[in-house]
């Protein structure tokens, strides 16, 4: 029985498929993909995921803007967001966290351990 909902927002269809397959290794995860910030906002409000994986560099609405919009809507404001990005220098991670991200996973990621990384990002939210 899937009990942890993860919404993955990324404009690259191939990466969405790999993320879905990687998280699918953990039977507890249910994954849904969106190809733009706008679709992601709608899906987040309607589906109420436990966590959102958010690409940084997307056309039209980028990751930080999408995060800001998620925070503006009371329905989605509390959902933890983890950025997925190529740029993951320590200072940049600090910066993303200062924007309100729960964590950062760098690309390319290891598909065999992605589910565990995502789970570890969920721990603080579950505990608190």
């Amino acid at each position: 029985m899937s009990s942890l909902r993860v919404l993955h927002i990324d404009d690259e269809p191939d990466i969405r498929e790999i993320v879905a397959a990687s998280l699918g290794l953990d039977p507890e995860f249910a994954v849904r993909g969106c190809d733009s910030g706008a679709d992601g906002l709608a899906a987040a409000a309607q589906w109420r995921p436990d966590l959102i994986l958010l690409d940084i560099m997307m056309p039209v609405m980028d990751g930080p803007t999408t995060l800001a919009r998620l925070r503006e809507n009371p329905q989605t404001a509390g959902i933890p967001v983890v950025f997925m990005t190529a740029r993951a220098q320590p200072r940049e991670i600090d910066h993303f966290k200062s924007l309100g991200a729960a964590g950062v996973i760098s690309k390319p990621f290891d598909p065999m351990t992605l589910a565990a990384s995502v789970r570890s990002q969920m721990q603080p939210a579950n505990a608190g």
Partner: protein
Amino acid sequence: MIADDEARASETAAGMPRNAAALNTEVLQKAILNSADFAIIATDAKGIIQVFNAGAERMLGYAASEVVNKKTPNDFHDPQELIARAKMLSDKFATTVAPGLDSLTYKASRGIADTHELDYIRKDGSRFPVHVTITALRDDQNEIIGYLKIGIDNSAQVAMHLKDEFVATVSHELRTPLTSIAGALGLLTGNVAGKLPESAMHLLTIAYANSQRLVRLLNDILDIEKMESGKAVFDFKRVEVRSLVEHTIEANRALAQGCDVRIRFDPASAAFDVRADPDRLEQAITNLLSNAIKFSSPGEEVVVAAETRGDTVRISVGDHGPGVPNEFKPHIFEKFAQADGTDARKKGGTGLGLSIVKQIVDRLDGAVGFADAPGGGAVFHIDLPNWARAVRLQTRFIRKAHLHILLCEDNPEAAIVLADRLGQEGFVTDVALTANEAVARVAATPYAAILVDLQLPEGDDIDLIKQLRSQPQIYNTLLVVLSADLEQTHDEGRPSTLLNILDWLDTPIDVARLVRVLDRPIVRNGTTRPRILHLDSNRDALGVVAKALGAKAEVMSVDSIEKARRALAANRFNAAVLDVALAAGSGFDLLHELRDSEGDAIPLVVFSPPDANPVFAAQVRGALIKSRTPIDNVIAILRKRLVGSSLPSNDKDAA
């Protein structure tokens, strides 16, 4: 005779030594005119070329005889660029400027300084970017008799900028497909799609290992680019070497085991501290370790040691591999230098590892080197000044310079803590508990820096900054704004920022004052043109400032926080001009990003509405409180701006 000469000399250049006067007139003018680095073109009032110097000949490919009395500067421009420029000028001055010569001389003929960037087209049709200044030449009656146009080839600067952007873009563009490839191969080799025959698995393992190698290569290229362009941020801290080395060894244990190589940490190694960025130092040690592992044969041992030699800490990594061939020794730290390409590449090396080590260690004020190991193999080492020496040298320098600091802080307890700490660092500190006291002290004592706590009693804080900055005697004084929440320790979870305020002005912008402010040595910081970020929601203001500063600085004008973020991600700036009262958000939202390559606050000119606006003041305080200030950061910025980031070399050997 001699008297006559002297009289003539003093006529030509009063107050100058005779030789200089002679130089001034003929030799100097000739030298300037013959300079191959400037294209100097003078025209008559109609725009017909009269002077075409050697630099112009070299850059444009025409002989002077081909153009003098024959051509106008229009002939070296792209007509489309002139049309665009005429349109820009027509809009700006609400008039009609013709796209020909008029577009080039319109401003100069009206006495307006005109510096701009355009392309020049060579005789062979090729083009290059040029930075041009145009001046009107006038006779005694102030009539225009011609124009002087001085051009500097801008290709190198433009090319460098394009290269940096290209590397960053390519790295991102390659990373996207690579993420899918590495992900898919990782899933297949993990048997996620079912058990595969052994032969297929073998091939997939090769593909997966090589996708990982491409990732490393991309990361290394990006690191090198950031380091070379100065965009890499170094966060200097007190670092305990022994635990950092142990941690690094643990992180590389799997790689060593994969190659059947043991890593031994020399038990003689004790605990010492250095001043470094721990992440970067770990990266440097990792690169040395992975090199040593790759060049070891199965069953061999890599020995890591950390020891002090006087006040220097040496971290060394030794292997029993083939050693560094003699002919390769001079090139070992160069990019893509691999003595035996096939051997190292077979083991997944990128050819950039040692070059990155050198770049990092240079930035840490250290040295990197290597030697042949007794009995074969190589020992690489990193030497860094120990913590005590790094601090002692800076403290001694500060004491010698008698640097006085004024601390404006209404909380006496906080003031004592900070003044005490500043005293330990060698600074002489005065404390002002009220705004009035601060202004009085500034009038009496020349301070090297002023620290302002932005939580002085109600309404005093921003006014105090404005008031202080309008005092002529502290025109060049470093003014740092900090929040009251001074912390003794680093809180890793929270970003920290200080404001380095060059000036705090009322809107609308006083352009003349802004130009003066940004011309201070603290902004120029070297010989190259400073790069300045200007964020303002008012496009007219952006245009005016860009023009006013254009001759002395490279101004990047942005009208929204998003655009500012993008500019900050791609460029390094020497200073920023911020309108904090934007339509959407506040310029202070950018606080955490307004940093230099070492992570410290860059000099800032702030514009805010003239009336005391409580909402705005609250915003400013909010931004500062969110970012608490470790005392170490205050010390670091004072040292850096007052002492300079590198230590004075003559103190190097003093005990």
